[in-house]
Structures are given as structure tokens and as C-alpha cells.
């Protein structure tokens, strides 16, 4: 197959891998964040650990796969991007390390102090992870100050109203969706406490507000996803970010009414449309410059060789469905088993 076509398909697969990662990660991270707020006994904490830890490593691999695919498919964009977001990348790593360890190891020692500090680490690392991921994705969709083939970034460049709102949005979503996740896993009491918590502190109401700030923020520049190639050519595409906002409003509504399934569906679609908006808006750039469109790096400029793209495509075609099948089967098997 043509090199450019393969590169374009892989661009979509990278977006898909990031989406699959986040759509699973947000609810399980929220379970960890919640552990210090609603789980007072070790027994409750163990229940939360069980519904998060069973899946967390498998979920994390989607992030590794997405990052690895960017590396292999668009090496130049990968190098520029990660050296540009250096500090955020390390904050993300520290959050991933502590979240991964705390969920696995919290009950490997029964000393009360160990459990106390690991609970705290589980919650704080979850908050940090959600915040940094929100900041990261909003930056990907807003673009970077990239011109003359170099990043003009400092430690604070990644923080803007939009990106901070994105970070807070991910935190709010993780609170809401983890309440749903607890319900799906048959933890009725904890789920009720979680729903009460997110209503009491107004977390559910913040979602549409924060998402509106994200949308306004990422379109604040002259160079933005809305003024990008596809959105300019096909104006009806504007319906996608609007749909995303509507679905996030439905998350608020249905979580207020404590309707777990439909809350989850709204969240899934809201996040999906947000990602589709972002990836369509930044198309055909693998590194989107908010200085000027022509400064960005495109798919064609940064793609790997035909053989590399062919190898990646063949491996993905064979392995990805198998991975989705066994991970999906794991959810079906254990959700059914745990509920009973």
C-alpha cells in the first residue's frame, strides 16, 4: 500500500490508541482518587483496589502503545514533541510510577502506616496523572509554539487557561466515571457514597463548564483546530465538538439522576467526539504549530519509510484485534463474575 496512505491510517490508529487508553483509564484512576474520601476501612479499600488493579496494567499498555507508535511512525515529531514537553513528560512519569505501585502494593504489607501512605499516594498520583494528561491532550490540540523547526517552550508554556481547564476536566470526569465503575462492579454502597460526594461538592456541574473553557481556549488563537484544513473545508464538522459538549452536558444530567449506564455512554461519546475533533482539527499535522500552520510538521514530512510503516501495519492488523478480544473478554468475564 502507498506510504502516505499507511501513514494516514497509522495517524488514526495512534488517536484510537490514546482514546482507548483514556476511556478506560479515567474511571479506574478515579477509583484510586476516591479511596481516601469514601473508603474508611481496609475492606473498602481492598474492594476499590480489586476493581482498579485488575485492569490498570493492561490499560497502561495502551498509553505505551500510543507513545511507541508515535515513535515508530513519526520519529521526528516524537522527538520534537517530547523534548518540547520535557517537564510535563517527567511529571506524567512520576504520576504513572506512583499510581502503578500504590495500586499493586497497598496491601502487600499490613502495617497501618504503609497502608495509610500508599492510600495517599494512590489518590495523589491519580489526581496528578489526570491533571497532566488533561494538560497534555489540550496542548496537543492547541498546538505548540513551534517555528523554524524548533520548539520555543519553557517549563510553564504548557500551562494555559485551556490546558489547566483540561486537567481539571479530566479530574472531574474521573470522579464521576469511577462512581459509575464501582456500580458496574457491584460495589453498591461505595458507588452510592461516591455519587453523593460528586453531587455534594458540585463536581458533576463543573464538567460542561470546564469543557467549554477547553473548547474556547483551544480556538482562541488565529491558528487553531477550527481554522485548520478539514474544518475549513467541511464546515459541518463543527457539529463534532458541539456534539462533544452536548454529551458532556448529558454526563452531568445522568450522573445527577444516578443513571450509571447512560452516564457512561454519554462520557464515552463525549470523549470520543472530543478526540475526533482534536485529531481532525490538527490534521495533517503530527506536530501542530500555533504560530502558523506552515510551521507545523505534517504526516508526510515526518512519516517513516515504506517498510517501517508496512511492518507496523501488518503487526497492528494481526495483533490489535487479538488484544482487543482478550482484553474485552477479560472485562466481560470479570464484570459478570464480580457482580455476582
Amino acid at each position: 500500500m502507498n506510504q502516505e496512505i499507511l501513514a494516514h491510517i497509522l495517524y488514526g490508529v495512534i488517536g484510537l490508541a490514546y482514546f482507548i487508553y483514556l476511556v478506560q483509564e479515567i474511571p479506574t484512576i478515579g477509583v484510586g482518587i476516591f479511596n481516601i474520601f469514601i473508603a474508611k476501612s481496609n475492606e473498602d479499600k481492598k474492594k476499590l483496589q480489586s476493581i482498579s488493579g485488575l485492569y490498570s496494567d493492561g490499560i497502561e499498555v495502551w498509553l505505551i502503545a500510543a507513545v511507541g507508535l508515535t515513535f515508530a511512525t513519526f520519529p521526528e515529531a516524537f522527538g520534537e514533541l517530547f523534548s518540547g514537553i520535557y517537564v510535563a513528560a517527567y511529571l506524567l512519569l512520576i504520576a504513572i510510577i506512583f499510581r502503578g505501585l500504590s495500586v499493586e502494593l497497598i496491601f502487600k504489607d499490613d502495617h497501618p502506616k504503609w497502608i495509610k501512605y500508599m492510600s495517599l499516594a494512590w489518590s495523589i498520583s491519580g489526581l496528578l496523572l489526570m491533571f497532566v494528561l488533561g494538560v497534555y491532550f489540550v496542548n496537543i490540540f492547541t498546538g505548540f509554539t513551534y517555528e523554524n523547526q524548533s520548539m520555543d517552550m519553557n517549563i510553564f508554556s504548557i500551562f494555559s487557561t485551556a490546558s489547566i481547564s483540561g486537567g481539571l476536566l479530566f479530574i472531574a470526569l474521573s470522579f464521576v466515571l469511577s462512581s459509575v465503575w464501582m456500580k458496574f462492579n457491584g460495589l453498591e454502597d461505595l458507588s452510592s457514597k461516591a455519587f453523593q460526594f460528586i453531587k455534594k461538592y458540585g463536581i458533576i456541574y463543573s464538567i460542561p463548564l470546564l469543557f467549554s473553557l477547553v473548547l474556547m481556549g483551544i480556538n482562541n488563537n488565529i491558528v487553531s483546530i477550527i481554522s485548520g484544513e478539514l474544518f475549513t473545508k467541511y464546515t459541518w464538522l463543527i457539529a463534532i465538538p458541539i456534539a462533544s459538549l452536548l454529551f458532556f452536558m448529558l454526563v452531568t444530567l445522568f450522573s445527577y439522576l444516578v443513571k450509571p449506564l447512560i452516564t457512561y455512554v454519554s462520557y464515552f461519546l463525549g470523549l470520543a467526539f472530543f478526540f475526533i475533533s482534536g485529531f481532525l482539527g490538527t490534521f495533517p499535522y503530527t506536530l501542530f504549530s500555533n504560530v502558523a500552520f506552515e510551521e507545523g510538521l505534517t504526516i508526510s514530512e515526518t512519516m517513516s519509510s515504506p517498510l517501517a510503516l508496512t511492518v507496523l501495519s501488518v503487526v497492528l492488523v494481526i495483533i490489535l484485534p487479538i488484544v482487543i478480544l482478550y482484553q474485552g473478554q477479560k472485562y466481560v468475564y470479570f464484570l459478570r463474575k464480580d457482580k455476582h
Partner: protein
Amino acid sequence: MLEVLSRLQFALTVAFHFIFVPFTIGLIIFVLIFEHRYYKTDDQKFKKLSEFFGNIFIINYAFGIVTGIVMTVQFGTNWSEYVRAMGDVFGSPLVIEALLAFFLEATFAGIWAFRRNKISKTFRLITLWMIFIGVMLSALWIITANGFMQNPVGATWLVDEGKVIFDNFGNLFFNPYAWYMFTHNHLASIMLTSFIVLAISMYHIQKKHNADAFKISAKIAAWVILITAVLMPITGNLYMNLIAVVQPDKLNMIQNGVSVSQDVGEILPIYVRGAFLVMVGLGTFFILFGLYVVIYFERIYTSNTLKKIMYAFIPLPYIAIMTGWMVAEMGRQPWIIYNMMKVSEGISQVPVAQVWFSIILLISFYVLLFFMDYYLSIKTIRKGFDGDLS
């Protein structure tokens, strides 16, 4: 300064990550052996052995996986010029590793860690097989990537563009350098684990905790030490024959402690030779040690003094495997990709302050992680079958 810091950070993070890797590579094999015996015989002894060592596996696996993610991201943050030049070839093995290996081991490790007592015996066994296959494939593909850096085959260097272009997947995968490395490293990892399993088993025998069960694990470990210790020099020798052809300067450093390259100075080749001598010396000792523990197993079994000596030997295989990697990595200096690209050409041009930030951040957290792992592992080991095996 930027180059020194980037090198230092990579060396520290990879060395720290590698504390956990060989141990988990070997330990999953032991866990699988015990689980197989439990599956076949329904003997609770084997179930307990499988869960006890499986618990230690999960602790070290957790540390291994999180410190491994740092390596992938670090290529982008600190080695972006290398990625730009080599990503075309180097990226594919990393993606294949994630898709084939990481998904498998991570998905099933979650089941082993959190549901192993709520699933059938067959499902337990399948779970461990999947983790084992994942671990094997992970080691294979990361060494395929490293093998390319040592002996770049399957790609052509485009001088004008300053990057490589991937032209033969078969050559990359069947790179003999990678296969020798994989075999040698895997044997070393299994041996290292056997030293630890032997010491842990002897500890419980000494304490008279389930001595009959731990006698089985000790005996298996003793035999595995002997077998791997005999195989190591054989694979090592074959590996050296290839090095003589594809990396003559490395051989020069190993044999004479000197290099023809002007870039490496006089000290580094001496370190390479020193590391090689330590590795070979320990390798020779391991054969004698293996013979001793197999032949005089019963004597060790009854003598508390000999058992205590077993604990003291645990650092030795770590030193051997680390010095082996020092020979492999320091011996290819100044090249990041042998005879193609120098290490100094691969670093990211980022502000030095940022690299200071990441080094200090990582060192602080890694010191904490080291103590956490040590504390938990020792506590779990001491508890034996009385620990939380559920």
C-alpha cells in the same frame, strides 16, 4: 555538560530498571514450574510455592513495569536526535514489544495479582503461561532493538539525510548479535533468580518453615544454577566469536584494554576489560558453585552456616550481569549505533536546567522506590507461606 547529564540519566534509569528485569524473567519460570506441578498433582505444597514466589514476582514486576515506561519516554525527551535518525528502524521493535508482549503480560498479571484464587486451576495455569510468554517476548524484542544498535543490519544509513532507512525486516529480526545477546542474557537472568530462590528456600529451611516444600524449590534452584552456569560460557564464547567480526574494537578493549578510537580516551577501555574479567571470573566461580550446591545439597540442607553463606552470594550474579552489560554498552563507545552514529550526536538539545530537573527528580524517587522494593520483598520473603497468599 548536556551530554554528560543525558548519559548519566540514561545509565542511572536503565541500571535501576534492570535491577528488577532479570529477576522477574527468571522468577516467572519458577512460578510456572510450581503451578504446573500443582495443576498435575493437586498438591497444596506446590500451590503455596507458586503463590509465594508469585507474590514476590508481582512486587518486582510492578517496579519493573513502571521504571520501564521511563525508558520509552526518555528517548523522546533526552535522545530526540537519536530518535530522528534511527526511529525508522528502532521504533518497530518497540511497538511490537508493546503489542505482543506488554499487553499479554500486563493483562494477565492483573488477573494473577487480583483474582488468582477466584479462577479455576486451568485458568490459573493459562494466566501464568501468558505472563511467561509475554516476559519472553518482551526480552526478545527489546534485545532486537539493542542488537540493532550493536550490529546495525536491515537498514541503510543515508548520509545526506543523516538518518537510517529500514530495508529488511528479516535481517533485523534474525540479527545474530541480538540472538546471542538474548540467549546469554536470559541464561544469566535465570541463574540470578536461581541464586535468590536458593537463598530464600534455605532461609525458610533454616527457620523450619515448611521445610519440605522449600527443599523442593532449593533443589530445583541448585540444579538450574549448575545448568545455566555451564551454558553461560558456551553461549558467551559463541557471542565473542561474533563480536570479533562485527565489533573488533570492542574485542580490542576486552582483550587489551585499549581502543583504536580517539573518542573514548584511555580509561574507558580499561573499565571494559576490568568488567569483562570480573564477569568471566564470576562465571567460572558459578560453575564450581553450581557443582558444589548440587553435589553437597544435603550438607547445605543440614548446615546453618552453609545456608547463611548462600544468602551472602546473592549480589554475585547481579555483579556478573551488570558487568556483562557494561562490557556490551561501554564497549561500543563512542557509537550509539555501531559505526553509524555517535552517542554525542543523539542527544536532545534541551536546556541543561531541565535535565538537572529530571535527574534530581528521578534519583530522589528511585531511592525511595529502591527502599520500598527492598522493604516489601524482604517482608514478603520472611513471611513465607504465612504471608498474604490470597
